[in-house]
Structure formats: C-alpha cells, structure tokens
C-alpha cells in the first residue's frame, strides 16, 4: 500500500514529460493525459481504502531515515481530498478533450495544455500528501506555476491582464508562506509536521500565535477568504472553461486544506481565543460579502466566482468551530464543494459554447434551445444553494448542527450567517437560471460575433463536452446516496487530523520532545 503513495505524484509528472515529448501528436497526448489521470484516481481510491482500513499511510522517499527524507503521508483527510481532486482533474481533462482544445483553437498552443495540466495535478497531489511544511510549499509552487501558465494560455490581452493580478497575488501569498516557514524553522528547528506540534506547543504563546497568523494569512490568501478574496472574481472568469473549472474546484480548496492542517495538526494544541474569534469573523464575512457580490453580478462566470468565494466561508465555519463534528462537516463540505463548483463551471462553459456569451443581459430562452444544458445547470445549482436532498443541504445541515451543538454567541452567529448565505445563494442562482434559461426573449448576440441564432449554436456543442460535464453532475448528485458513509469518513478524517500524536507517530517523528520549551527559542538554538 505504501508504495502507492509516490505514484500519485509520479504518474502525472511522467505523463507531463511524455505529453511534452508528444507535442506534435495531439491524439497521443490526450490518451497519455487521460491514462495518467485515471491512474492517479485509482491510486487515490486505493490510498483512501488503505487509510480507512489500516490507518494513515506514510513513506519516506529515497529510504532516508525518518525525519531526514521527504515524507509523504496519506491519512483519511489527505486521501479523501486526493480522490476528490483526481476525479475532478480527470473529468475536466475529458471535458477539454471533448472540446477538442482548450477553448480558442486558433490561438492556444495545445501542446502546452496537457503537460501543464498534468503538472498542476502533480502539484495538487504533492500538496495533499506532504508530510512537512516545506514540501507543502513546493507542492503549492508546482501547482501555482502551472496555474499561471494555464490561466494565461494564448496570451490574449484579457488573460494577460487578469493573469497579472492572479500571479502577483499568488506570489505575495507564497512569499508570506515562505516567511512563515523561515520563522517556524528559526523558532522550532524543524519543518516536519510530525515534530512541529510538540515543539510549537512548547513555544511562548505570543510567538506561536504570531507564526500561526503568518501561515493563516498566506493560506487565507490562497483560499480566497475575505478580505483576501478580491483577486479571485477578477481572474477566474477570463480563463478557458476547463481551466476555470479546475481552478474553481481545486486551487482554493488546497488553501483550505492547508488551513485545516495549520489549525489542527500544527497549532491544535496552541489555543488562542483571539485567533478563533478572528476566524469566526473571517468565516462570516467570507460567506456574506461573497454572496452579496454574487447577487450584484450580471455575468454568469463572475456570479459563479463570487459564489465560490462565498462558500469557502462554510469550510472556514467548520475550521473556526474546531470540534470533530464541525471539522468533519467542513471536510464533507469541501468534497461537495470541489465537485459542485467544477460541475457549475463546466456547465457555464457549455452555456458559453452554446450561446456565445455569459452575460445575463444577453442570455435568454436557452431552456428551450438546449434543455439538456438547462437541466445540467439546475441540478448542481440547487445543490450549491442547499436544496434537499442534495449533498449541499446535507453538508450545510451538518455544519449547522455542529454550530448548534457548540452553542455560544460566535457559533450561533456562524449558524445565522450560514442560513442567510444559503438563502441568498438560492436567490442568486435562481436569478441566473431564470435569466439564462427561462426568460422568453432569445439570446441576443453581437451581430459581428456570431450571425447564428442561439438555437443553431446549441446543437453544435460537442456531445463529449456535455458527457463530461454530465459525468461530474452525476457524481455530485450521487453524493446524496453515499452521504452517510461519506460523512462518517469525513468525521474520521477530522479525527485523524485532531489526533496529533497519532499523526506524529505515523509520519515517523522519532522525537516528539517534551513540551517544556526545549524545542528552541527565538535566539535560533535548535535541537540537534
């Protein structure tokens, strides 16, 4: 089982190398990409099975002794996130294969798309499996640099402009992460997630909280938590549909995953009420400000981007509460959210393909022209808003129950904000659906853009694209049927992350020093 761990990273990297070499054979490229990502999905499923039955798996690369080499860890949280993300990358790859290219056939160098996409997948795998903070940083950088390339594919004016915002913001967050990393090392003398919990809890509270805040700031920027979310709705909508879908599904959730780890494994034993209160405020503001932004939008892609930001708040909701039930619900919500956002962005890609625009002022009457797309949009949209019996409803109920069980002012404030956000999401979504599919008027297009009618265009959407999008929609709808076991699994994942000692032992932390401050001080003294 342990031999599978590196495979989740190796397969996409090798696939990327192969597709780069096969640059002039697009068909072969597609086969290699799909095969590599299918392999990752199978690996992730096996890892999840192993983590659920035998407990967390860990391997130190290169047969180095534990604590020296690079360690990869798959506990239930890592494996679950990895499986979800690999399902998403595979579906999006199938979608873009069905599309024939990455959106604009003439301008995009297709040979770049597949290797970059696979490298992105490898970066996500590294980030989820990383057993030390520095490896997490490397994983982040691998996926971010790939995302820079994917976002600016084709190098059109709009994409370069949006990409510049995204790149600069991402670099700033990476610099913050690296700063936090350097400070953590200076204070504790290790970056291994196995040794860090013990040593961090030995630090003076002020130092530990300072380190925690630097890391939370860096991860919050990546996760697009308010008020660090302004970059997202400006950069995602310009990307090609499959790229936007995989970004919306995965990238912010890697940041959320890092926040999970920071709050549970690393700083679980460092309790500071001020940080918790801050997280509660951030969660509430992320939910409310995000959804109010979505209501104000007149473009389908921007509207979706704002709902994406808003629902990050639900995961922060769970992290801020910090109980097993709340964290489990947040993990469940993360799985649901990755899938549902990918589905929605893929369907918006279909809408754009069918209607030639995503502006709510021009779209209209698409329900008659393309009833299939209308259905594909409606299912994940209702799911996102939290209509029973969809998984969005189950995830939200689990969060609300955890909040109600916790009690207290901040927990109830979170519950109220969660309910309000859910209702406002329903409003934003139904407004978008009505404008796009239901209104009587036909889609108005710029005459110079396309002389065709919407109905004629709708028939030209490649069936493979629809099939890939439908696949994600089916998967996210099917979450309802496995919600019970999945919620149990998510609660188990939350227990895994809260069980810091167990994690340390599995990762191979030989020394978990006594929590008396021997882990080093600010002066730079380190345990040998």
């Amino acid at each position: 089982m342990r031999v599978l761990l590196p495979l989740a990273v190796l397969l996409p990297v090798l696939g990327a190398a192969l597709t780069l070499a096969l640059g002039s054979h697009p068909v072969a490229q597609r086969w290699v990409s799909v095969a590599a990502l299918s392999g990752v999905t199978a690996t992730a499923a096996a890892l999840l099975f192993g983590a659920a039955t035998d407990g967390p798996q860990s391997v130190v690369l290169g047969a180095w002794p534990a604590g020296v080499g690079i360690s990869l860890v798959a506990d239930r949280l890592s494996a679950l996130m990895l499986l979800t993300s690999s399902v998403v990358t595979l579906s999006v790859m199938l979608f873009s294969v069905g599309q024939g290219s990455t959106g604009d056939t003439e301008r995009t160098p297709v040979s770049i798309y597949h290797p970059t996409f696979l490298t992105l997948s490898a970066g996500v795998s590294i980030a989820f499996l990383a057993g030390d903070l520095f490896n997490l940083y490397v994983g982040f950088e691998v996926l971010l640099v790939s995302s820079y390339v994917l976002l600016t594919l084709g190098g059109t004016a709009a994409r370069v402009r949006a990409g510049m915002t995204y790149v600069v913001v991402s670099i700033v967050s990476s610099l913050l992460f690296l700063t936090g990393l350097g400070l953590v090392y200076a204070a504790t003398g290790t970056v291994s997630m196995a040794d860090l919990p013990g040593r961090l809890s030995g630090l003076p509270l002020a130092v530990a909280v300072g380190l925690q805040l630097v890391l939370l700031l860096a991860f919050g920027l990546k996760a697009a938590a308010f008020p660090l979310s302004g970059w997202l709705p400006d950069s995602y909508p310009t990307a090609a549909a499959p790229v936007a879908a995989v970004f919306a599904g995965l990238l912010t959730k890697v940041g959320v995953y890092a926040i999970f780890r920071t709050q549970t494994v690393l700083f679980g034993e460092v309790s500071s009420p001020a940080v918790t209160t801050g997280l509660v405020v951030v969660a509430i503001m992320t939910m409310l400000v995000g959804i109010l932004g979505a209501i104000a939008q007149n473009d389908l892609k921007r509207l979706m981007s704002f709902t994406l930001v808003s629902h990050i708040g639900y995961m922060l909701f769970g992290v801020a509460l910090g109980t097993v039930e709340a964290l489990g619900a947040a993990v469940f919500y993360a799985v649901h959210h990755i899938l549902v956002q990918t589905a929605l962005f893929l369907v918006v890609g279909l809408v754009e393909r069918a209607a030639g625009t995503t502006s709510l002022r021009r779209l209209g009457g698409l329900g008659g022209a393309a009833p299939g797309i209308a259905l594909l949009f409606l299912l994940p949209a209702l799911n996102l808003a939290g209509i029973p019996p969809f998984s969005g409803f189950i995830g939200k109920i689990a969060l609300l129950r955890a909040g109600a069980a916790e009690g207290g002012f901040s927990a109830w404030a979170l519950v109220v904000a969660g309910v309000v956000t859910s209702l406002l999401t329903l409003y934003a979504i139904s407004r978008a659906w009505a404008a796009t599919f239901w209104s009587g008027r036909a889609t108005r297009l710029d005459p110079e853009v396309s002389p065709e009618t919407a109905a004629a265009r709708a028939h030209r959407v490649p069936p493979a694209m629809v099939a890939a999008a439908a696949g994600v929609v089916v998967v996210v709808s099917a979450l309802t049927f496995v919600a019970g076991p999945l919620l149990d699994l998510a609660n188990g994942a939350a227990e895994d992350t809260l069980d810091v000692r167990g994690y340390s032992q599995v990762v191979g932390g030989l020394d978990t020093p006594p929590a008396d401050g021997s882990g080093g001080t600010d002066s730079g003294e380190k345990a040998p």
Partner: protein
Amino acid sequence: MSPTIVLTVAIGGLVATGVYLLTSRHLTRVVLGVLVAGNGVNLLIIAAAGRAGRAPVLDPDGEITLETAAESSDPLPQALVLTAIVITFAVTAFLLAMAYRTSRIEGTRGDDVVRDTSPQGRSRGEAAPPGESTDAADSSDGPASSRQQRGAPRGAGGPVLGSGNRPASSGSPEEAS
C-alpha cells in the same frame, strides 16, 4: 548563538523595499519588487541556520555528538533555500515573460498591472486607437497634476467589480494587438 544584526537589517530592508515596489502599478517595478522581497525572504531562511562561517557538514570520520553538532552550521535551511531560490528564479522568469507580453499587446503604455478603468472607460478603451486608450490607467501613478487632468474624465468610475452600464466583457477575450 545570535544572528548578526547585519543580516536582520538586510532582511528588513530587502522586504520593505520589495513591498514598496510591489505596491507600484508599474509592471517593471512589480517584477523588481518580487525579486527583492523574494531574496529578503530567502535570506531570512539562511539567517535561521545560525551563525555564519561554519561548515554545514562535518568531517566524515569524526563522530557526531551534541558538541560537534553545535559547532557545525545547520545544513537543512541551506537545502531549503536552494529550492526557494530556484522557485524565485522561475517565477521571476515567468513574470518577465508576462511583462514582455503585456508590453507587446498594449504598447509602451501597457506597463500597468491592472487598468483600473470604469466600465465606460474600458468600452471606449477598446474602441479607441492604442495611443489614446489607456488614459484612465495613468491617473493613479506618477505626478498627479498633468496626468490626472488627462485621465480624469474616464478614471473616476472605479474598478469594474460592480454591474456597469454595460454588460461585462469578460466572456470574449479582447485582442488589442
């Protein structure tokens, strides 16, 4: 052991300079800011390794004890910083490529990170010839006097976050070149 004050001051100075440059709207300065701040952070990791002037790896024949370990420099931060330097280098290269692409697309006026145009401003910006199209972008950088006057009619609308009087144009990539 205590880190030298020189390193501390250098780190602070580099990061402060980098952050100042990052707040500029000029792309070239942003690239420089990333470089400078990145090197400041890399230096921070080196400073975490402890006192300078010691060998990171000891004599292979010697026995490693607590005493000899205290004599040597910590090798791990040096390995970390090597990775970080490579990443900084790669990211800078990509940023430079993007800056170059921006200048190719938008001409000599394209040196801004984001053109903070109003919806109306942007729609006119697309239609107008390149020489006149980017007035709105200038209003926030450089001396306010002359540029502000030129950019004033269009630059007052704020960012394109809200719903403008015009449908958002993000669906179709605008090719300006």
